[in-house]
């Protein structure tokens, strides 16, 4: 496998997607980009990190959110760009993703990377889910929350990720048709799931 390739990981909160991504990047010896993208986007554009963080994988598209979010323009006829908006941050981040994918093989977590790189023939798009119980336990542990709060966070985060993905991509978040492989990490457990995905990737790239 001399040419570069890209692994894009979509994931439900608490499904272990990030961990799987890290293990895959270690397995193949390639770069891993999750929240690191924010730092890169900030550096590339000169805009503050906090803006990318606030816009990261969530977008307020409900009425109130759109009203108060970084998107609303109160003018009807807009002749000039307002660069301080979510769409700009997305574009900057997407440019960073394209640049990285052009230079080296990498793993991207979330952020519509699969859509952004849709023209790249050597992409493998994976979506990670897990049993609800496992997800709640994992989130409760990682974020130090009660089980109830963990469940709330899961519902909220998944909703935001779906809105973000559905808005910026032309696909549907979590739908089988949007990915090459959808897998429930609870079935085989973390290590075996990584092995399974690795095998899938190796065969795909032949």
């Amino acid at each position: 496998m001399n040419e570069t390739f890209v692994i894009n990981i979509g994931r439900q909160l608490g499904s272990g997607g990030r961990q799987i991504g890290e293990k895959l990047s270690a397995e193949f010896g390639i770069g891993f980009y999750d929240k690191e993208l924010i730092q890169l986007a900030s550096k590339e554009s000169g805009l503050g990190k906090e803006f990318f963080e606030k816009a990261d994988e969530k977008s307020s598209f409900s009425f109130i959110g759109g009203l108060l979010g970084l998107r609303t323009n109160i003018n009807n006829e807009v002749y000039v760009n307002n660069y301080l908006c979510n769409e700009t941050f997305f574009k900057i981040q997407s440019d960073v993703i394209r640049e990285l994918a052009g230079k080296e093989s990498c793993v991207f977590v979330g952020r519509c990377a699969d859509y952004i790189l849709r023209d790249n023939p050597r992409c493998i798009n994976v979506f990670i889910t897990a049993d609800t119980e496992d997800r709640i336990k994992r989130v409760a542990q990682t974020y130090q929350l009660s089980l109830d709060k963990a469940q709330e966070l899961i519902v909220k985060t998944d909703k935001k990720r779906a809105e973000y993905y559905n808005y910026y991509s032309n696909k549907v978040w979590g739908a089988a048709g949007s990915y090459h492989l959808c897998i429930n990490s609870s079935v085989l457990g973390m290590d075996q799931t990584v092995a399974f995905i690795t095998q899938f990737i190796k065969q795909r790239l032949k």
Partner: protein
Amino acid sequence: MEQKDLPIALGTEKIGKLLMQYAIPAIIAMTASSLYNITDSIFIGHGVGALGISGLALTFPLMNLAAAFGSLVGVGAATLMSVRLGQKDYDTANKILGNVFVLNIILGLAYTVVVLSFLDPILYFFGASDATLPYAHQYMEVILLGNVVTHMYLGLNAMLRSTGRPQKAMYATLFSVLINIVLNPLFIFVFKWGIQGSAFATVISQTAMLVWQITIFSDKKHFIHLKKGVFKLQRKIVVDSLAIGLAPFLMNAASCVIVVIINQGLIHYGGDLAVGAYGIVNRMTFLFVMITMGFNQGMQPIAGYNYGAGQYARVTEVLKKTILSATIVMTSGFLIGELFPHAVVSVFTNDKKLIDLAVDGLRIVFIFFPIVGFQMVTSNFFQSIGMSGKAIFLSMTRQVLFLIPCLLILPTLFGVKGVWFSMPSADLAASIVSVFMLSSQFRQFKKHAAAQKLESL
């Protein structure tokens, strides 16, 4: 709005130069829009008479509402379009264009059908009297029949802007104004079509531009063009466009409601000519406000980018320069309105009574203009640095929040003058609020900058 790559010049070029560069196209375009209404008023005023202007003035909220609906789709779709173009997703981008086309046809026809069916009751509610109703009705009839054209023209203009052809959009606006200026006197004075002539002129000028826009978008050589298959409405595009466009639409609708309330007050306490006088004053206000809004639009990318990059000194500088420019514009308006009101109003009408009322009104409404510039820029400033909530609040203080109580209370004390006084009162109150909010914001900036210095130690 094309989602080009960030121009780094925003962070390095001289602020004054940047402001002119960004503001001037916006000023030209927005002033052209306001000229549209001014020319209609002028020709109707001279060709149809004082009652004609009053009738026309009644229709302003309906026309603004129609334009607001027209922009509802365009504004939202333009944002979606720039995302797609930024990702070179031309398939979806073309579908957005097609959807805008179809959606505007649907909304345009719906608006026409609904408003036409209830036109007279609506006009009476807006402040029509038996004397002014026929004028307003005749004018609106034609405008409503051509409403689909208006919607599509506005929508396609937004598409032109977001697909990297803002100059063409500007030409479309300019030419439609020019055609309107030529056709108005032709239809009113030569063909003697009365107030309907003006309406026909408006519709025909927009139709002409629509045809031009459609030709542009039929050019298969451009990557965004109309073709088979893009016209099918897609739920995602429709819902997202409407969601994005809803906020500016509501702001627009709110100001329409205000005009209705003002007209109701004027007809109640002052009569038909008072309504006509406000129509004239409103058009003049609009002209200066549009120029200021052009400066506001110019400020947005500069303030936004530099705020994002943490260059607060440049943010402050562009804010100051924009406030200065806006104040100069609005103060010029103030001087013209206070020193030469007779000359200004006579452009619109010869009727002595109407002139007197309009001159009085003009002098009252323009009183606090020198500080309104500051208020408008401040509101837009918050918009530019991402604080939409504050921006909307400040905008509402001037246009709605203070105005409504004034409109309800002052006329009961001062009669028709109370209606006129409401506007500068709201201006003043809103400006005071802006001062507080802006200084509070700057105190936060200083704290932030100080904290940054500590962090970097």
